[in-house]
């Protein structure tokens, strides 16, 4: 499935799409977006790349294995719930930094949770798509 048009386009689009997925993740708390849709966009971007360049190339740019993305996503989401426990609050209470950071804006444990969702969803979608593609 090698097409010059597709592979040229995706080479230009891939960084943009990935950036857009992170943008969606970060703005999620105040504007439409969030970890789930961000993860899906990221997965779609990588899947497109895999369609154009092959599964092996997609694995190369991913660096980490989708299974590890799933595991680390779960771990991040869980740790965002555990952090409040250490300050003596119930599991998964939202904790926020008192000041805003540049670019990231207001940061707190819900953002960490969303990051976990992002990683997990992207990993899940990629795991399924890439292993289906690999079958060929």
């Amino acid at each position, binding site marked *: 499935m090698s097409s010059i048009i597709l592979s040229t386009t995706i080479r230009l689009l891939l960084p943009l799409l990935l950036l857009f997925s992170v943008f*969606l993740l970060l703005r*999620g*708390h*105040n*504007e*439409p*977006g*969030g*970890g*789930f*849709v961000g993860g*899906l*966009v990221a*997965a*779609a971007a990588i*899947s497109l790349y895999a*369609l154009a360049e092959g599964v092996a190339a997609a694995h190369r740019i991913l660096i980490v294995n*989708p*299974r590890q993305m*799933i*595991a680390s*996503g*779960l771990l991040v*989401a*869980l740790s965002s*719930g555990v952090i409040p426990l250490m300050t003596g609050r119930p*599991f*998964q209470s*939202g904790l*926020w930094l008192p000041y805003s950071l540049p670019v990231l804006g*207001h940061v*707190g444990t*819900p*953002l960490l*949770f*969303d990051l*976990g*969702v992002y990683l*997990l*969803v992207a*990993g*899940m*979608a990629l*795991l*399924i*798509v890439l*292993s*289906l*593609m*690999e*079958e*060929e």
Partner: protein
Amino acid sequence: MLLAVLCGFVAALFAPLCFRRFPLWAGRLAPLLPLGLFLYFLSHIGAVSRGEAVVVSTPWIPSLGIDFALYLDGLGMLFALLVTGIGFLIFLYTPAYLEGDRRQGTLFAWLLAFMAAMLGTTLAGNLVTLFLFWELTGLCSYLLIGFDHEAEGSRSAALQALLVTGGGGLALLAGFLLLGNVVGSMELPVLLASGDLVRNHPLYLPILLLLLGGAFTKSAQFPFHFWLPNAMAAPTPISAYLHSATMVKLGIYLLARFSPLLAGTELWLALVAGVGGLTMLVGGILAILEHDLKRILAWSTVSALGILTLLLGVGTPAAITAAILLLLTHALYKSSLFLVAGAIDHGAGSRDTRQLGGLARKMPWLAVAAIVAALAMAGLPPLFGFITKESIYTALLLSPWEPLLLTGLMLAANGLMVTVAVMTGLRPFFGKGVPALAPPHALSPTLWLAPLFPAALGLLLGLVPNTVAPLLLYPAIAVVQAAPASSVLSLWHGINAELLLSVATLLLGTLIVLSRRRLLTLLPASWQEGGFTQDGGYILLLRALLRGSRLQTMVVQNGRLRYYLMATIGVAMGSMGLTFMESGGLPGSLVWPSGYLHEWLAAAIIVAGALTVTVTDSRLGAVVSLGTVGYGVSLVYILYGAPDLAMTQFCIETLAIVLFVLVLYRLPLFTLLSTPLVRLRDACMAAAIGGLMTLLMFYVLAQPLVPHVSDFFLANSQPLAHGRNVVNVILVDFRALDTLGEIVVLAVAALGVFGLMQSRRPDGEGK
């Protein structure tokens, strides 16, 4: 004390890393943890021996009123010292035993976790804490028995132990809940003070049966005795620690702990003493029919556990005294003998008593340890084992129920014990071995030092029993009988019935030793080789369970997606229809929805897409039409102001089409298999559920809106959760627990897909 109990779990987390980086030093430092804990508990012995209890309690689940409570009294102290003391020996011994094994770190992680779990169980201050740690010991035991997980036998033995003790654990949980309900408290001090209430309660019988279920499975009492010898698949230090000295005594601990609550009825006497007596004989007889050192020791452990149960069942002060003495003696000599067996296996390369012999010259110190331990097992003066055996006979002679019968049975069991002592402690070191065996190599010092310790301690205790007993044993006895202990221990009581019984025991044991060979030849040929398992019933039950679940799966999960879908839709329709009928049918006036032209257009797109799917004769066409339906729905989301949903739906649709296309490659050509009648039925089903959903929508629209939940979210999203996007705030903050559950499901589903894909690979190897 909280820290003392939990530090084992923390250490377990770091053990694998430490052993990988510094194998030598980690092995040398590991014994310091149990030693430190031993000394820590020893520092409390003054207060505990005065009859005080050290209580620590910290809120755990405050919303349910459950505390994490620890309670250190005489009985807990005895167990804590045994667990940490023998733990120290095991930790000392294991690095040399598993020299050069890369998995030492893992083994130590489980061992540390097990030690912590044991401490937690025996020091638990309420039923919830007790149950939690009880189950953790079972889990650690599972992992440790299956340590050699590449061997089929290890795995099935581990599973067997887990299923048997886990089943008992469930019974225990039910018993604890009943007990907590009857007494109105889960706290141990309250429970221990309400014995009369429990004994006279109508629920006494179920409580007793359930608790005994937990205790008997854990302590391998008949008919659950079969799992313990199979658990010998574990490395020998594990067998010495878990399956002779500590974990299998938990059932005994439970009986002793709840004696003040449950003992003293006829039912208790019949059940506990009866089962204990039977176990003691079965274990003893099977022990002398085996040839493998570890299996002999395992069956004799079953026998000793039977004796302990029998004594607690009799329940007189003398019997409780004997039980506590035997608890200590048995832990000392049996752990020593197990470690000796491991060292013999390590040095001489065999555990078969028919092959071993003459090892005393090569392993002199090991021989000393083995002989002293064996003498303690046989109950010879001046060892502590002798005092124990005397007190057992005293207790049974004074038993309120069938003293002569019990004493006679005990004589037989103890005679068998003498035989086992000779077979495991003396036989391998004297006489001649099979010359074909490789010449034994020298042992590293810790391999003989570890068994020598407890054996020597048994000798020391026998010589000066009254220095330790008031500190350690009497407080434990006092807790079990709920009254101060009064007996004085000594080696020499004059010539009395007990002494004569001891002599008779030795004679009987010698007789069995001398005639064992000849007796064995009388048995059927299939019994000659030993290796008794006794788990036929378990295997039958397990097989029936597997067959039953296969049958159930074939009916319920038959693999035909069409029927799954029909079942789901049918249930949904049934429950909705019932609700309609319950609520009195549809309201009279339905509001016909008004909409703009573009909204109707979006609806038309969805309908057209759905219709196309059903009539198209190309797969790609069906996929694209399905996608059209999805995009139409997201269009509706946009029109009605739900951009988050729309965005997610768009992405999902896109990825779904990609997936479909990938799968389509592998499908055979499109053919129509269903008959027109089946298609008609499917169409009716679809129309029915669609119509019902439409009706439902009308119905809901006709109801006045009760928006208090969404009002709360809208009002509090910004001030409480610092977010303006309410949908996202609900997902990651207000309802984050739900989301967590959902992403776990996603992860599991993805792994399932991955597993299915991998299993279809021709080379069968995952990446």
